[in-house]
Structure formats: structure tokens, C-alpha cells
């Protein structure tokens, strides 16, 4: 993949402000405006804690290290290529958040050539949702559709306020919809997974009851007359409210929730959302995803290999190994492309427990033990290309601040070195 659709320069206005697309959370807001002071960010609007954490002052380190010692970019790439080549096919390539989609395309090409395994944040963040969706399908919508259609928002064990601060104002109950006049909000609290406290209706259920509750809701939708246990009656009442709505948005989270949630629970919720589509109501489920361009990682991997995560090229073609995700196999080396620190712990640990190369933001800081590390910028501040919103909508991102190491170029150079070493392509 190339980035040939994104060759225009970003527009820096005469007053030193520049619009950007923020990758601070999966909302991927493109209405953020930076005020620059030289090569740094002086301020930005609108206020958003996720954006503030993402943008900072816009400055990122630009070091290149080999085994902790500062060196040239070329020497770091040589060391990286040597490690990966000598690993003789026992390589783990990890796609980490924060970079343009095209860079991940280069990384997957390297994985293909090395017959490597590919790990992504999804192994730890959203695997159950992806797998359940593959078994059953899913009814979803782009976020603007929720804004314009939904008259009922049901937050299922998630309060977006902290991780997705602008979700409600841009896409949900606090946004201005085209077709909806009145909206209702229901918060479903499941154990420690809290829903918005401001929801008009609050429902609480124990985690152990969740699957039974969804089952009771589905049975009620089918018109089952059998009585339900008293502790599940609230869920039955809830589904009757939902079925009376015209367009229901079920909002839940792929990450940040209870890790013990089962595959069965995930699939049941997808099935409930499907079932709520009937003669009088429509329903879409949104699984909130955090992480800069993690949706782009999944999308690219799907179109290039046919699989959304947990891909292994060991056989010479993509194979799917979701059951071994996170800690599969023994590797002789790892290549991390993206922000190492933004990876889920299990995925990060799988990479750093073996000799590794890190090419990504703050690599020199977060990977002190790396055989080679090269700092890059991040997409939308220092690197141009495409980044995907959590609902798979691709947005252009521009480079508005300087950084000496564009990630796409580094990966292309690494690929060329591997090629010269006899690794195709």
C-alpha cells in the first residue's frame, strides 16, 4: 500500500493555527485546531483530556540506538536487519498503535517475507468481539449514523466519559441529530463496569447474571411466555423499552472492561443486537475501541491477509491462529512497529522477552533493552497518511510538526536491507 492519496501539504494558517485529526482515542476527531509556537504545540481547541495526553507539546524524541547506545539511523537499520535476518523465520512482528496505515502495510510486507507471526493490540483488546463477530456477524453503524438515527442509547457496562471524552457530544446523546428529536439514555452497570451516571434509567446486574439476563431479553423478544427469575426481570423490562424505540444504539467497550467476560457473553450481546432489528425497530451495536489507529491495523491486516489479527506467515501464506494469540510460539526476535508503550501488556511482553527492534514513537525511551530502536513521530502530528476511526471510517492525517524519521520510510529501508540480505520481497 502507498500513501499516494495524501500528498498535499497541510494548511497552516497565517495565525499559526493548523487543523489536525486527533488520534488520542478511537473517536478520531478532525476538528481539533493546534496553535503552534515554532516546532511545538502551544495550545489546542477544543479542550479534551484524551487529546491533551495525545498531543502534549508535540515534541517527541528523535534518537536512534543500538543496544542502548546512540548511533546513526543507518547503523540502527543495519542492526535491525541483521537481527531479523538471523532469526531465520522465528520472528514476531507486532503492529502497535500510533502510525499511519501505510506504515503497517510495510510492516506486514516484512512479516510476509520473513514468514513471521503478526501480533496486534486486538489479541488482548478485542479478540472476543472479533471472534464472536466472525461466528455470527454483527449489526453496526458508522458513528454519524448513531448521531442522526438513534433515539435510545444503551450504555452496556461502559461510560465513555474518561476514555472517549467527546463521544457523547459528537456522536451520541449530546450531539445534534438529523432525524431524532427526543432521545433516551439507559445505563447498564455490570459489576465494576459502570455506565454513565447521568443516564435517565439505571440498571444494575451482577456479572454472573449477565449472560442469563441477555438470554432472558432474547427470549422476551421471541415472545416467550415463561416466567423469569426476579433478578432478571429488570433485563426483561429493559428489552421491552428497547424494542419500543425506533433506533437503538447499544454502546459497549472492547477494552477496559472485565477481562473475565466470556466469549458466550460477547456473542450473546451481538445476537441480541441482531434480534432487535425487526418490523418496528432498528439496532446497531458499537464496540468502543481505544488506541491510535488500531482500527486501521485491523482493517489493513484483513484486506492484505483475510484475517483481522493473529496472523502467522510461517507456512508461506497467512494462517489464522487466534487460539494461540498473545503468547504463541517461541521467537528468536521481534519487530515492534508503533508505540510499544501503548500495547496491552501481554502483547508487549511477548515482544520484549526476546531480542527486539522497536521503530515507533519514544522507542528509545520505552525500549531500553532493544537491539535497535528508532524514534518516530506519530500519525496526525508528525506523519501524514490515513488513520481509521473506531468505526472503520478512514480519515486523512497530516504532518504538521517536523520529525526526522518518518516511519514509512524507515520500514521501506528495512525491507530493502532484508531484501539485499536475501529475504524477499
Amino acid at each position, binding site marked *: 500500500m502507498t500513501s499516494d492519496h495524501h500528498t498535499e501539504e497541510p494548511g497552516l494558517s497565517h495565525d499559526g493555527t493548523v487543523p489536525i485529526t486527533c488520534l488520542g482515542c478511537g473517536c478520531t476527531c478532525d476538528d481539533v485546531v493546534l496553535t503552534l509556537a515554532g516546532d511545538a504545540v502551544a495550545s489546542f481547541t477544543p479542550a479534551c483530556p484524551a487529546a491533551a495526553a495525545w498531543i502534549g507539546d508535540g515534541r517527541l524524541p528523535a534518537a536512534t540506538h543500538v543496544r542502548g547506545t546512540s548511533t546513526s539511523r543507518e547503523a540502527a537499520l543495519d542492526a535491525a536487519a541483521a537481527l531479523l535476518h538471523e532469526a531465520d523465520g522465528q520472528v514476531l512482528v507486532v503492529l502497535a498503535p500510533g502510525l499511519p496505515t501505510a506504515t503497517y502495510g510495510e510492516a506486514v510486507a516484512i512479516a510476509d517475507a520473513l514468514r513471521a507471526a503478526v501480533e496486534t493490540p486486538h489479541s488482548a483488546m478485542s479478540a472476543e468481539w472479533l471472534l464472536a463477530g466472525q461466528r455470527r456477524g454483527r449489526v453496526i453503524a458508522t458513528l454519524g449514523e448513531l448521531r442522526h438515527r438513534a433515539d435510545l442509547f444503551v450504555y452496556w457496562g461502559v461510560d465513555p466519559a474518561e476514555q472517549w471524552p467527546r463521544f457523547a457530544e459528537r456522536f451520541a446523546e449530546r450531539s445534534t441529530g438529523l432525524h431524532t428529536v427526543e432521545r433516551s439514555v439507559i445505563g447498564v452497570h455490570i459489576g465494576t463496569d459502570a455506565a454513565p451516571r447521568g443516564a435517565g434509567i439505571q440498571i444494575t446486574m451482577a456479572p454472573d447474571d449477565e449472560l442469563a439476563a441477555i438470554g432472558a431479553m432474547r427470549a422476551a423478544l421471541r415472545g416467550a411466555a415463561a416466567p423469569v427469575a426476579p433478578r432478571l426481570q429488570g433485563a426483561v423490562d429493559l428489552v421491552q423499552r428497547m424494542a419500543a424505540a425506533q433506533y437503538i444504539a447499544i454502546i459497549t467497550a472492547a477494552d477496559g472492561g472485565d477481562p473475565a467476560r466470556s466469549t458466550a457473553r460477547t456473542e450473546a450481546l451481538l445476537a441480541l443486537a441482531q434480534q432487535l432489528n425487526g418490523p418496528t425497530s432498528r439496532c446497531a451495536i458499537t464496540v468502543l475501541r481505544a488506541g491510535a489507529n488500531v482500527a486501521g491495523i485491523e482493517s489493513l491486516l484483513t484486506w492484505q491477509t483475510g484475517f483481522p489479527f493473529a496472523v502467522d506467515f510461517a507456512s508461506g501464506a*497467512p494462517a489464522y491462529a487466534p487460539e494461540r494469540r498473545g503468547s504463541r510460539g517461541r521467537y528468536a526476535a521481534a519487530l515492534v512497529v508503533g508505540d510499544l508503550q501503548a500495547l496491552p501488556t501481554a502483547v508487549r511482553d511477548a515482544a520484549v522477552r526476546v531480542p527486539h527492534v522497536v521503530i515507533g514513537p519514544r522507542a528509545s525511551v520505552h525500549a531500553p533493552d532493544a537491539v535497535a530502536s528508532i524514534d518516530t513521530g506519530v500519525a496526525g502530528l508528525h506523519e501524514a497518511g490515513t488513520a481509521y476511526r473506531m468505526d472503520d471510517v478512514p480519515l486523512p492525517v497530516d504532518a504538521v510538526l517536523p520529525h526526522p524519521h518518518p516511519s514509512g520510510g524507515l520500514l521501506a529501508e528495512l525491507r530493502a536491507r532484508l531484501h539485499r540480505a536475501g529475504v524477499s520481497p
Partner: protein
Amino acid sequence: MSMLRITGGAIHDPANGVDGEIRDLCIRDGRIVAELPSDAPTFNAAGRVIMPGGVDIHSHVASASCNHGRRLLPHEHAADPMPAPVFADGSVGRSGTGGTLPSTFTTGYRYAGLGYTTVMDAAVAPLLARHSHHEFDDTPCIDGGFYTLMGNDEFLMRQIDAGEPAKARDYMAWLLGATGAYAVKVVNPGGIEAWKTGQRNIHDIDEALQGRKSTPRAILSALADAANALRIPHGIHIHCNNLGIPGNVATTLASMEALDGRRAHFTHLQFHCYGGGEGKPWSSAAREVIARINAHPEHTVDVGQVMFGPATLVTADGPVEYLLWKSSGRKWTNVDIELESGCGVIPYMYRDTAAVAALQWAVGLELFLLSEDPWRVVLSTDHPNGGSFASYPKLIQLLMDKSVRDAQLAVCNQKLLAGSALLDGLSREYTLNEIAIITRAGPARVLGLTHKGHLGVGADADVTIYDRNADIAAMFTSPVAVLKAGEIIVEEGHLRIAPRGARLHVRPNHDAAVLPAVRQHFADYATIRFENFAVRGLKTPPVVPP
């Protein structure tokens, strides 16, 4: 400067009136030329059949919808791994997976392996156009483009409601350029918008959307007029209302009649040619529909043939996928796409033992066999909806060999075939020249691609060379050689190189006076900024109308 003389082959170039003439074909710098120096390199095609590279007018290969489909098919991909090809220079391509919705690199390699060099993706939501360009970037060997969905577009319907045809036209022109699209696609006009509301669907072309004046008739009329006024190379590409519903022939004929005298393309017609309904069993209405097409030279169609075997239903027509999910219980993905469109995906299997599938198979063949003008009735399976593009050789065999057709018919479930022209013993067998028309020359002409689908001087040197073979399916499965822009990319079943193809897109002129209203529409309703909507930096220049 690259040169190649292909010698001794029987050339089938119907656009230039050449039907099996044995002569040399000269290529220089990616184009067909009249002659070459005598010492130019040669490729011996003696005894072989030469055609232009295949042109697929309607396929689903590079879109966010395809990616939703891929996510549903891990079992297909696991069962069909494709190792990276080793090219002639020793370099290695990219691996991938196949099935009914292959990964991108595999899609390009496999199309090329069949002798196809141009492919159009038939349905891309404008908001997701950027994604399609990325997928095409990773789909080598073919020139590609897509049609952008406009039949349920909020801004457009507002112009129709307001009686603003000029604004609708200028918006169409702007949207085509902004998305880097090649043509306008209309899917279930108004019906996808209805699917998102309590109305659920639209069943008659004069049924208005709730709270609007827009009807399918009004949408079709406005879009056809706009596209024709803008001289877009390909007329609007119409997926009629009521796809796949028994009795939908009435809607199909009414939609055609609504556009009498106006250029338009009706796609996957097979799915729109059913009698029955309202208590009556399904039946074939192919004769009635193809008779109308035969009589209306301003209208073109692709067939959307059903082939027995696995398929994946991928369409913007959300409500029809919902009905299929309800009736089949299969896995189902639905995506509502803001202000524009939708998407539905269901993996499927056409079995010859199933009555409806057998009827669909027969209806498609009837359309082909009763067509009086192959230039206007061209080949498609609506890949992967009616079957994979990999099944094209078998479809060609069905058209060229009555005995193969009859053998399949004999084992089909014939419960719904009463009245089918196929049962009446249609004896027509397509000739090689007619195959060249429905797979190359015809689609290129319908698309307005003046440099493709023929082998005249100045044409793109996209060429396919076949060995003659009594087994037609085998002949069309494995070309001896495939040339893309003058380079041999496939030889004896092996990929030699996998060049990146060109992007086929248009950029019609529009009155910039429409843009303030479009900008305001974005400011009021879109979730991305106007400035971030248009794709940037397409390297290939736009196609200019003939």
C-alpha cells in the same frame, strides 16, 4: 522502449470487426501499434486464440464492504491459502488467501490468471472511498475503479425534494471527483434510507420516502439526467428496488420504462427477473425483461449469473440482507453508513438441489441466451454475490456448450422452472467472438473505456492468449499468456510480474456555486470536516469522456 510482436494467433477483436483473423499483433510502449521493426521481439501464438484483456464491469473486490465480508470468512481463507508467487526475476510477491472474497493481492493475481486486466468495484460509499483506494493500491495486475453510491444520499435527495436538478448535477460531479470514482451507482433507490427508518424498505418506484417527495422514480430520473448531462463515460449503474423478491419483474420493468430514451445500465439483472409473489410461486420472467432490453438500445445490462457453489452476498442493499437473514438464520453483518448508504453481508451457498437457486441459475442463462445484442448484455456474476469471479470459465462453458448446460439442467431442482425458456431447449451456443464481446469489448464500450476491450491501434496493450481446448472451462481457466500494458504478466500459468494497475476515475466539471451548500451540509451533519472528505493525490489522470 518496449516492443513485442505476437505472431500467428487467431485474433478476436470484435470492436474492430476482427473475428478469428490470423495476423500479427504489434505492441510498443504499452499500446497497440500498426507495425514494428522487423527485429522486434516476438511471441509465438500460432494456433492460439488472442483476445483483449478481460474487463469486469461489476464486481466487489476493493471496499470496506468487502472487508466486512472477509471478516466473516476465516474458514474460507484458512482453506485456500495462496503462497507468495515467485516472479520471473526471482523476486517474490505477496502471499494471501482466497475463498469467495480473497485478500487484495490474491484478488489481483487471480484475476490476472484468468486473463482479466480491468475490474470495477460496483459499490463504494463516498465516506469510505479512501478505503477503496487503499485496497486497490494493494490489488496488483489490474486497472481498477469503482462506482460511488448515490441513490440514498441525503444531500442529493434534498435537491430532488427541492426541485433543484442543477444542484443535484453539480453535486454529483463534485462527489465523483472528490471520491475518485468512475461512475454513479444507485442501489435500491430510497430503500436503504427507508431501511434506517420505520418505513423499512420501498417496494414501488412511485412510493415516496417518509416525509419526503423523493421516490425511486425521481431519484433514477435525476441521477440519469445528471450523469448524461455531465457526459460521464458510464451511465448510471442501477441496482433496482426489490432485488431477489418474487414478483420483482414489475419493479424492474417500471424502472426501465422510467428511463426510456435515457442512457442507463441495469446491473445483475438476473436478480431482478422473477415472477410470482403474493401467493404464487417464484418463476422466471427473463423472457419479458430481455425482450425489453433487446428493444431499447439506450439500455445496457450485466447479468449477475448465479453459479452453483459458495458465494458471499455483499451489497449496499441492507433490507434485502435482513430478509435473507430472517429466512436463513445465517451469519449476518449490517452496517448503516451515515448520510449515504449501508452494507449487508451474508455468506451463502447456491445448491443445484435448491429450487430457488436453480431458478436463479436458469434465469441468468436465459438472459444471456435470449439476448439479441451481446454488446449490451455483458457477463458478470456480481462477484461474489452470484459466485466468485473464479467461476467465469465455467460460465463461459455453459454459454458455449449446450451439452454441458443440459447436463447441469438435468440434475437441477426443476420445481420452479416451468415456463423457463431454458426448459424449452434453447440451443444457442455462444461463439468465441461473442464471448470476446460479453467479457471484453462489450463491458469496455458500456463503460466508455475507449482504450480498453479492443486491439486497435492506440488501445492499451492488455491482451490474453489462450490455447484452444475442447474443454472450454479449461481453456479460459489457464491462458497461455496475459499482457498488461504490453508486459507479459502471466505465462504458462505463472505470474511473471505483478505491476501496479492504473486507477480509473473521472472528474467532471461542476459549477462551484454548489460548494457552499455542500460545505454547510458537512458542517451541519457530517462527522468529518469537508476538507478531509476528498481523496488526495490520485496519480492516474482522470478518464475523459469519449
